[in-house]
């Protein structure tokens, strides 16, 4: 079982909120999800299995030397900015 309050906590940790109705739906969905996730625990002898994080271990592309310059065009970047000032992106104040 998982409570609506716990779900709200998990959502808020990810910096968003949901409506009461949405939490209600998610609570119901979680009943199925947790039942499904219990199937993972039914597999025996997994304690010594190494977790798989990528399907193929591939070392073909290694980190490049730190000598490449890649510049975005200022005009292209500013296309996506909500506010600009002096040809720069204006962001909200961080220090109050």
């Amino acid at each position, binding site marked *: 079982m998982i409570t609506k309050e716990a779900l709200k906590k*998990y959502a808020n940790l990810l*910096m968003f909120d*949901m409506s009461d109705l949405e939490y209600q739906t998610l609570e119901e969905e979680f009943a199925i*999800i947790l039942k499904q996730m219990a199937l*993972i625990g039914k597999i025996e002898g997994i304690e010594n299995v190494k977790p798989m994080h990528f399907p193929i271990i591939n070392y073909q592309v290694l980190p490049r030397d730190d000598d490449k310059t890649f510049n975005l065009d200022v005009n292209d970047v500013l296309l996506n900015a909500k506010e600009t000032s002096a040809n720069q992106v204006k*962001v909200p104040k961080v220090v109050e």
Partner: protein
Amino acid sequence: MYSKMMIDDLRQELDENKITGEGLFKEANKLAHKHQEKYNSFVTILDNYNFEGTSNTLITNIPYALKDNFSTKGILTTGSSNILKDYIPPYDATVYKKLKEAGAILVGKTVLDELAMGGTGTTGHTGLVRNPWDESRMIGGSSSGSAAAVALGIVPFAIGSDTGDSVRKPACYGGVVGFKPTYGRISRYGLFAFASSLDHVGVISRSVRDAAIVTDILKGCDENDMTSLPDEDIKYIDNINLSVKGKKLFYLKDICDINYYPNKTPELEDILNNFKKVINNCQKIGIEVYEEEINKNLLNAIYPVYNTISCAEATSNNSNLTGISFGVREDGGNINQVIFNSRTKGFSELIKRRFVIGSYVLQRENQEKLFLNACRVRRLIVEKFNSLFTKYDGFIMPTSDAIAPKFNEKTDKLSDQYLILGNHLIIGNFGGYPSITIPSGFVDKMPIGVCITSAVENDALILNMAHEIEETMTYRGMIVGEEDV
């Protein structure tokens, strides 16, 4: 008339100057607009012919569509999400760059389930995508618009992305081919990440041959994607007609037996009977087909393992959508409130639900028993299939447990009965295996398909086998309204 043609025919028309590239683009553009209101395949339809090819290839001047989660410099790229509804990328995805250089002509950016998370085609911010075979039904997702555009004959091929089944399932529901090559075969640079360890680029087309042609253009190592594989020194198209005599496929015996299902339906019976016919066709062309059984606990864990891993990775990958660095910015009293309000307003309910699942499995107290155990079970499933792929050339199954659902129908993805038949395509993503669906018939006038999956780097072989199996049927090149249902 061009809407019925596949790449080779279009190439011939172009080479014989029966039509120009611009003329072909205009035809595709006209069709895209004609079908947009009813089917909603596109987020953006491009109205100007734009040729930037640098070499002559089989796809030079051939129109195509691109899922709206691939970055296209100067062209709106939304991920079908409100949070990115105004985003214009300042750079090109490698896939788009390669297609441009090959001279292919972009017709439009296609609708997806928001941020590629979903399998219904109903969650894009510009509205739901309808199935061209029956507009009361879903096309599936998340590469919904790409599949619909190909099924409608707007373009001969489209590009999608596949994290669990997102190229193959909508392709199946649309009666077309969907191919997901080996993980890393095609660069993911510039593709909006959903779950990086599962994400693949894929091709949707109306024939296996066309899928091979396009994959030949797209494959190759990319210094911008550290998971990309070195190019093979072969062209898939040159190997597509090889004999498949003596090749070995297997399928899951129980899961393909109607008696396994306590609540059997005529629809499922028809799907499994169609599968038997395809197996029979395989045997007629010399492919040996065997039955295998795999521990049910392992197979039943496929969907929850996918759900756990994909939601966890998605939570992390989309943490950059804050309204500060990316995304529509909402007002707020301080920077945290700005981020909070931007994410609350920018994401739809479904996406938020997935993120909460991701957050839950990544909590310190759940990491070991849920997230890491899911990664362990993923390895066990992959090891099982890797061992089977030492005996067999591939794994064949019905692509889906059902025809495309109606919009008002509840899907059975979480039901116990269809936990394996409805979700086995995910195995291809767990192992990074090449996997392809081809149309194999109709049930209730809706297309169904079979899916073939093979060992990592067997891309040429799988295209070859799929091509030869496709030859035993009559669905190659099919578009809506032209079929013999």
